[in-house]
């Protein structure tokens, strides 16, 4: 198993600098998720780990050894691609055993390993099929099997579930997490889906425009986002972020003066309370624009007196009498408020 460390790494494509000053450490056996919007260079970061992209500046260490110039095969990593990248001219069995055969592993060992992985992933009846004869989920499992069979030092996943339907995605999410836990293998997983990131990663690195905005465990990212970018990116529906005066409205003096001085305030939709309760602070009236019923909960899209859009997440059973066009009082608990600097967007303590 391997620890992976980026030290001040930069990446340029011609004149375009896509990654600058990247510092990131992935501990041995850890499940690290790189998450961010399209074009934030998370895949490029993963490809630099794999050796598929060169490193323009800085150093990459794998297991304490400088790895900038190592060939992909020398790193002993496995990678699962978004398109699965199965070899179309080979059967599932040949796909699984490809890497072992290249390493001149003896036939008996290859057969044993294929049987082990087949058993583990339930691929038994697919061994003689070609990739084009597999469904998306089956192809994904074969790709996973091909990655596992060599017992690599680390697994790299590049948006592996993007091509699957919602149900299968949830199932495969569970299977990948299970596999990682069983093998205790260092794993780096790239996704743009924050639900995948939150549910799978031991730690998450949130990236934007080639820079890491925050690294931490999922609850830390959710409960104490380091900046407005992370606050807005993690969580669905996204956090309500707006200038302090626009959010607080007439809450005035009951709020911590630090929050009042902050440039931007944030509040998670589940922390926007409809109606006043003891210990809460009122932030004025808001009109219901739209309601999304998810069965167990309701997403209310509101507009406050200052014209700002606010989203609230409430239990379906508490929505009696609420309908589009109705005006409702909003409130919050002070401990649920997130304050960010006006110019830098960084979290205020």
């Amino acid at each position, binding site marked *: 198993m391997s620890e992976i460390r980026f030290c001040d790494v930069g990446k340029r494509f011609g004149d375009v600098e896509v990654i600058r000053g990247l510092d990131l450490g992935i501990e041995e056996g850890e499940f690290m998720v790189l998450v961010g919007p399209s074009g934030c260079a998370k895949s490029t970061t993963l490809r630099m780990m794999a050796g*598929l992209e060169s490193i323009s500046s800085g150093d990459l260490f794998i297991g304490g050894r400088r790895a900038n110039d190592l060939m992909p095969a020398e790193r002993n990593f496995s990678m699962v*691609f978004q398109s699965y*990248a199965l070899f*179309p001219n080979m059967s599932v069995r040949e796909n699984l055993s490809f*890497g072992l055969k290249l*390493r001149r592993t003896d036939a008996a060992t290859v057969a044993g390993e294929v049987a082990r992985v087949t058993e583990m992933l339930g691929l038994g009846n697919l061994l003689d099929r070609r990739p084009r004869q597999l469904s998306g989920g089956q192809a994904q499992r074969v790709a996973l099997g091909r990655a596992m069979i060599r017992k690599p030092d680390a697994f790299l996943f590049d948006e592996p579930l993007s091509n699957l339907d919602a149900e299968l995605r949830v199932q495969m999410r569970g299977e990948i997490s299970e596999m990682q836990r069983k093998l205790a293998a260092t794993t780096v997983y790239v996704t743009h889906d924050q639900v995948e990131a939150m549910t799978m990663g031991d730690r998450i690195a949130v990236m934007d425009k080639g820079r890491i905005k925050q690294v931490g465990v999922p609850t830390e990212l959710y409960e104490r986002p380091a900046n407005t970018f992370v606050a807005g990116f993690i969580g669905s529906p996204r956090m309500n972020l707006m200038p302090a005066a626009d959010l607080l409205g007439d809450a005035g003096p009951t709020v911590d003066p630090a929050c009042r001085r902050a440039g931007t305030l944030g509040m998670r939709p589940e922390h926007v309370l409809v109606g006043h309760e003891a210990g809460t602070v009122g932030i004025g009236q808001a009109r219901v624009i739209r309601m999304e019923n998810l069965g167990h909960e309701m997403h209310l899209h509101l507009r406050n007196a200052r014209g700002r859009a606010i989203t609230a997440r409430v239990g379906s059973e508490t929505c009696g009498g609420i309908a589009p066009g109705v005006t409702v009082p909003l409130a919050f608990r002070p401990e649920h408020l997130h304050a960010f600097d006006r110019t830098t967007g960084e979290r205020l303590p």
Partner: protein
Amino acid sequence: MSAIAALPRSARIGARLSLGWAYLFSGAMVLFSLFPVYWVLATSLKSKRDGLASPPLWIFDPTVANYLKLWTHETFRHTFLNSMIVTSAGVSLSLAIAVPAAYAIVRMKVRGRDIVGVWLILAYMLPEFLFVLPMFSLYQWTGLYDTHAGLALMYQVHVLPLSIWLLSSFFREIDPAIDEAARIEGASHWQILTRIYVPCTMPGMVATAILNAIWIWNELAIALGLTFSKAQTVTLGVTSFRGYAALDWGAMTAASIIAIIPMLLFAIVAQRHIVKGLTLGAVKG
């Protein structure tokens, strides 16, 4: 036709008329392109007297005498065999060079890829005889003149650009992630090429080989310029029936038919591959 039957009457008549025109036009085109072949075939089956008759005879007693004559014609047999050798060597050489070249152009970060692309188009467009003139003395000096190897090598000027260009387009259809997955698994570029790219694009390979073979087999200008007797090809063999003062039309047309047969068989057998190869990637699954 069932689709036409479902239309209203006036539309049905219109649809049938346009279908009729399409058949008529296609039939005329087929006749137009096959008529010379028919004429050569008919002449090859006529006796000397019938062959020279004016106006031409449409009904005649067929004879295989011209074909039997070829059997004993030393020059024709020799040139036919030469063509087999030169075509095999030329096609093998072109694929041996074009396959790795196309892979390198498509998948490796090779400097000057764009210049190579321009060269490919340019070399393909230039008339082949242009290369014969400067090569004539060079070939004589190096001993390649009038040899199978010399001819197969010279043909690369034309077939190599076409092959690289075709194979590059086939290789581009393969998901680059497959290449990367294989590299991570530990495969070298050569292993990726031979174990994945070549098997995946086999119909394209066959189509390229057939197009090259047909071109080499039918080539005349280079063979005329760079051979004298030992390596003369079948296209020159056909012309050997033209004497100083007479033309043996029967034997010449029989030789033409015999010369067509190998490529015709080749194309029929491999037709499936040609169509599959040339439409490779045209429709994504």
